[in-house]
């Protein structure tokens, strides 16, 4: 895909090579993922189980304006399914970069990759290509299944949904790159998975609206990218335009602009530290 793109347009050589390298990383990761066929197929099965599980749970909970957008009532199923679908991007962002580095440490491939004339941003960011593409496919299937179980997606503003999906990926990726930096330094995931998986799900309004949280926690929630990403996506599902969701979009843009350079800098510092301590290939 990336290689084809590189060949299609008259990009400068540097960009062309970056696209081709990214394409090579995409193919590698796709083939590796598919080669673990049990994990690959059970991942799809988990989606089915999750949709069905929340379908029955939502039968216990009455529809409420708290679950909707702009004061319109919506079912809990509508609310939670969209959240669960898109929180996958956060999980992917946090997991894919750190597990890529961890796997390369374990496989002994990290040092060899680092010895190739490939820049650190390409080495780390290209690891997200397959993961996000796969997640996007999973989200699509997730939503398709949810529609079959009664979720109403007829009002979706497609442009807004696409923009917020991109902004979600853009804003979440730096968190993942920072996790990868911590793997490079500490050689284990430590608290990042707990923080990203547990705390942000609690405070980010994934399973329930953040309006139910105490006020101080609502402020904390506002500081999390996932909150704004989910607000935007839920808005898009209910037909909101980009202009209506501008505050959320701006928040995500600004956060991305700040976090991306910081994350790449921290990753580069972690690599430098590993080179000084001689631990680049350690695990």
């Amino acid at each position, binding site marked *: 895909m990336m290689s084809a793109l590189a060949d299609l347009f008259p990009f400068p050589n540097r960009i062309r090579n970056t696209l081709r390298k990214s394409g090579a990383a995409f193919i590698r990761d796709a083939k590796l993922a598919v080669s673990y066929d049990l994990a690959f197929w059970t991942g799809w099965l988990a989606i089915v189980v999750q949709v069905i599980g929340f379908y029955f749970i939502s039968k216990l909970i009455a529809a409420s304006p708290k679950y909707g957008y702009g004061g319109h009532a919506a079912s809990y199923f509508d609310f939670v399914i969209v959240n669960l679908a898109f929180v996958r991007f956060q999980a992917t962002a946090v997991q894919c970069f750190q597990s890529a580095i961890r796997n390369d440490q374990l496989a002994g491939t990290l040092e*060899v990759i680092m010895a190739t004339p490939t820049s650190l941003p390409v080495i780390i960011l290209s690891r997200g290509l397959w993961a996000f593409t796969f997640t996007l496919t999973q989200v699509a299937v997730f939503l398709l299944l949810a529609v079959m179980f009664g979720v109403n997606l007829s009002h979706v503003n497609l442009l807004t949904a696409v923009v917020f999906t991109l902004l979600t990926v853009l804003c979440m990726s730096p968190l993942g790159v920072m996790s990868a930096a911590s793997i490079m330094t500490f050689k284990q995931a430590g608290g990042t998975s707990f923080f990203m998986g547990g705390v942000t799900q609690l405070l980010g309004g994934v399973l329930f609206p953040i309006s139910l949280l105490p006020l101080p926690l609502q402020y904390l929630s506002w500081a999390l990218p996932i909150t704004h990403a989910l607000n935007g996506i839920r808005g898009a599902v209910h037909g909101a335009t980009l202009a209506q969701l501008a505050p959320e979009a701006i928040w995500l843009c600004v956060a991305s602009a700040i976090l991306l350079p910081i994350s790449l800098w921290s990753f580069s510092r972690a690599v430098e530290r590993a080179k000084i301590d001689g631990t680049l290939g350690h695990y």
Partner: protein
Amino acid sequence: MAVSARSTYDPKAGTDQHIVPAVLVRDVVKSFPISLSIGSWISHRGSVPRRTVLHDISLDVRQGELFGLLGQNGAGKTTLLKLLATLCIADTGQISIAGIDARRRPMAVKHKIGLCSSDERSFYFRLTARENLRFFGAFSGLFGDRLEQRIEEVAALVDLSPSLNSRFDSFSSGMRQRLSVARALLGNPEIIFFDEPTRAVDPLHAREIRALIRDELVTRQRKTAVLATNSLEEAWEICDTVAVLHKGRIVANGPPRDLNVGLMRFVRYHIRLDGSPDHLVASLSAIDGVLRVSALPVLEGVSLILEIDPGGNSINEVLRALANSGTMVRGFRSEEPQPFDVFIGLTHDVSTS
């Protein structure tokens, strides 16, 4: 020829003095922290003590030279190679590759080098050899038909063409090592670092890899190669220059033949004589520069073993004494110093001093 830790061998002798060395290392020191645990970091208040693994390393590798780094396990060979390949950063000192400062411009250095890792795990086990080479080739800057063609070429060089479509996890240790050699050659680099490339390889393929490095890459293609090895025979057989590393120091550096001569403490001669010439043993022992004479009775005579100081010309005196003794000399041969003797001499001196 004297052998020193710095250099016994002028790498630029007989060449253009303005040619930039392919690899230049000056006064490099490298240390690693003794512990990486958070507990250790806290107990040392953020300044964990470090253990020096390379001490004041200086060496030059000429363009088109096959340079050997010889040493026991833990001598610092791999660390030095990692420094050259920009995978480690030196505490102090200067490293330049093809005239490029490795610390300041590591990316430019990476365009010039290929690395053959000694770690046989350094591939994706669930991909085929071809898929692995495709990925690493792309990251080395090769794409499309050029990459496919290059994969075929390097696979043929290491005799892996029939196995290109087999998964890496089905490869034997030797095949993995050979694939690592192939990968190092993919980007057609000017300078190639080999870390024990024949370690797990069977004797036949080891010989082919040595021939590939020596004859094809260095002699024919004029590439520069740095070969880390703990095989004396390998270093002596194919390297133009060998630096012997011991406990993080270069204890000798020069062409293997010069190391042999420079480190010889004596030249040993074996002389077969008729009869039992006790008087001859006494007169030979008295010659200045003769370090030891021993006589072994053999069938119809005696075998003398003489050890002579290589610095003087005592051998002339010995020959004169033999001629004057009137004893029939049945055989006379000198014994070349063996790489093992040289290596033991080098590393023994350092460890006992």
